[in-house]
């Protein structure tokens, strides 16, 4: 059972929801694992405080050309779709930051002068939280553009025994890193706020869920802050509103200090547990289809 937490707009409370859901389920003695897929700006570790025991580099294979053997024929530049390898004045130049590591140039080189060398893009880290949640995250190196390969590697990484319920905290937006994060989940939990920005981006995120055929539900955070157009949209689109978290200074101040919602307001634990039961029922019905 995998629940992905996404939003469209940033800063709506994805990590607040994802970490509190994980803590609430763990409090019921369920086996829970947590992946922080926001590899550009990961924050879940600040709330769950895992102790990292495992770490690994994520590399991309980039071409290295043996200048002595290279005939400068330019076939590599012809097949490269990313303009990461060019031939200038008979000399072959590689731009590693543009390379996607597909290996096409290596396969096509008629002289077999290309070897692939690993180039670091970021790291993966994993460990247990004090509650026993199996936690893993990815971290993109500064200056590296490509988050997607790190997210893919993170999702394949198995430093622990597979756990019962997996929670995937996704990055904001609706483009490729979000797709890489939520793909394969059984349920999409969309966290938004009732503002024009929140609604605009929620519509895109909901569309993404439909395209990937993942059933979705909404959590309204900072309820009461904006207007009622969000409720109208959810009703029209047939997306259930699973929970409302009111705009309260105490919650905002607690989260600012790195406290989870269930620590600030313990009564939310039961609400998250009930919400999970609802999600489980939806997923069971989906599986029947």
């Amino acid at each position, binding site marked *: 059972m995998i629940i992905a937490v996404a939003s*469209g*707009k*940033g*800063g*709506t409370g994805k*990590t607040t929801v994802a970490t509190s859901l994980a803590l609430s389920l763990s409090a019921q003695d369920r086996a829970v694992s947590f992946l922080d897929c*926001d*590899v*550009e*700006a990961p*924050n879940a570790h*600040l709330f769950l405080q895992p102790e990292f025991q495992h770490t690994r580099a994520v590399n991309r294979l980039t071409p290295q050309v043996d200048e002595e053997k290279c005939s400068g024929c330019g076939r590599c530049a012809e*097949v490269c*779709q*990313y303009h990461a390898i060019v031939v200038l004045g008979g000399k072959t130049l590689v731009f590693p930051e543009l390379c*996607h*590591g*597909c*290996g*096409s140039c290596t*396969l*096509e080189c008629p002289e077999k002068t290309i070897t692939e060398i690993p180039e670091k893009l970021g790291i993966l880290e994993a460990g247990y939280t004090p509650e026993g949640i199996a936690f893993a995250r990815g971290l*993109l190196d*500064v*200056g*590296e*553009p*490509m*988050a997607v390969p790190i997210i*893919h590697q993170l999702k394949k990484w198995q430093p622990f025994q597979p756990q019962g319920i997996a929670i995937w905290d996704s*990055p*904001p*937006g*609706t*483009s*490729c*890193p*979000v*797709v890489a994060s939520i*793909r394969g989940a059984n349920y999409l939990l969309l966290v938004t706020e009732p*503002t*024009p*920005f929140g609604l*605009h*981006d929620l519509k*895109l*995120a909901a*569309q*993404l869920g439909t*395209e990937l055929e993942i059933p979705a539900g909404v959590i309204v955070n900072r309820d009461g*802050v*904006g*207007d009622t157009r969000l409720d109208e949209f959810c009703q029209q689109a047939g997306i259930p509103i699973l929970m409302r978290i009111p705009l309260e*200074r105490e919650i*905002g*101040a607690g*989260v*600012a*200090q*790195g406290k989870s919602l269930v620590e600030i307001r313990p009564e939310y634990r039961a609400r998250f547990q009930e919400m999970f039961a609802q999600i489980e029922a939806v997923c069971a019905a989906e599986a029947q289809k």
Partner: protein
Amino acid sequence: MKQLVILSGKGGTGKTSVTAAFAHLAAEGEVSIRAVLADADVDAANLELVLSPKVEEREDFWGGQVAQIDPQTCSECGTCIEVCRFDAIYPCPRPLSPWEGGESYWIDPIACDGCAACVYQCPEGAITMQPQLAGEWFQSQSRYGPLFHAALRPAQENSGKLVTVIKQHARLLTMDEGYHLVLVDGPPGIGCPVISAVSGADLALIVAEPTVAGIHDMHRVLQVTDHFGVKALVCINKADIYLAGAAEIEAFCQEQGIEMVGRIPFDTTVTHAMVRGQPVTVYQPESPASQSLREVWRKVVDALERLA
């Protein structure tokens, strides 16, 4: 001509509200600065919601290509699966002739990275690249000057490339028509669209939030501006929600020699302005947030002038 980019690392710290206020203050504030606006958050573009732009031109944005197999030509050799490093190719029943049985292969357009390795390796020449319509971009006239913005379709790649397209057009118009400033509303994170938004900028303003998550991500984005040699200023938004956090940001900036250009208090008029579709400095010019934003803008203008 100068280029100013608004960034944050963490999402939802108030980049777009700050950008909208700056657009208004540049057009109608004490000092007139003719600015061209660009929304570089192409997969969650919100600046248009507060600037009521009239679209004057729209263009399709073609993203990367995606490979497609012709099941009639496919000989089921499996070479494509072997060479694909993006786990995008799967065996599937031959769709057009189920009575003959047998298998073909299917390329998942979402997983396909567009590398074309399979195209070159397929011995039957059964795979071709298909261009993908990834979104649109617009040149609009907003209340406070020309606006370049886009709508990337959900699940599309190449948001960095689209950011580059928008910024190029904003820059060209700025030069052609003698504008002073390109004001870029940046995306969250530190990856490809952020790098495209930062590249070529003269100055970055980081909108930091005094929360553990906001501070963590402010450090990340400051490393990015530093990496690309772009000077950065910091302002704190919702500065009074966690005073210890705000003090930590100020201490850090002082230690690193980063100019701190203001504290914007938490103020619900910012959200009310957004609901009305206006910059807060228009909706309630005397609200605490508007007053601080004018102060921040003055300091940013000073810093831009000092660059020259």
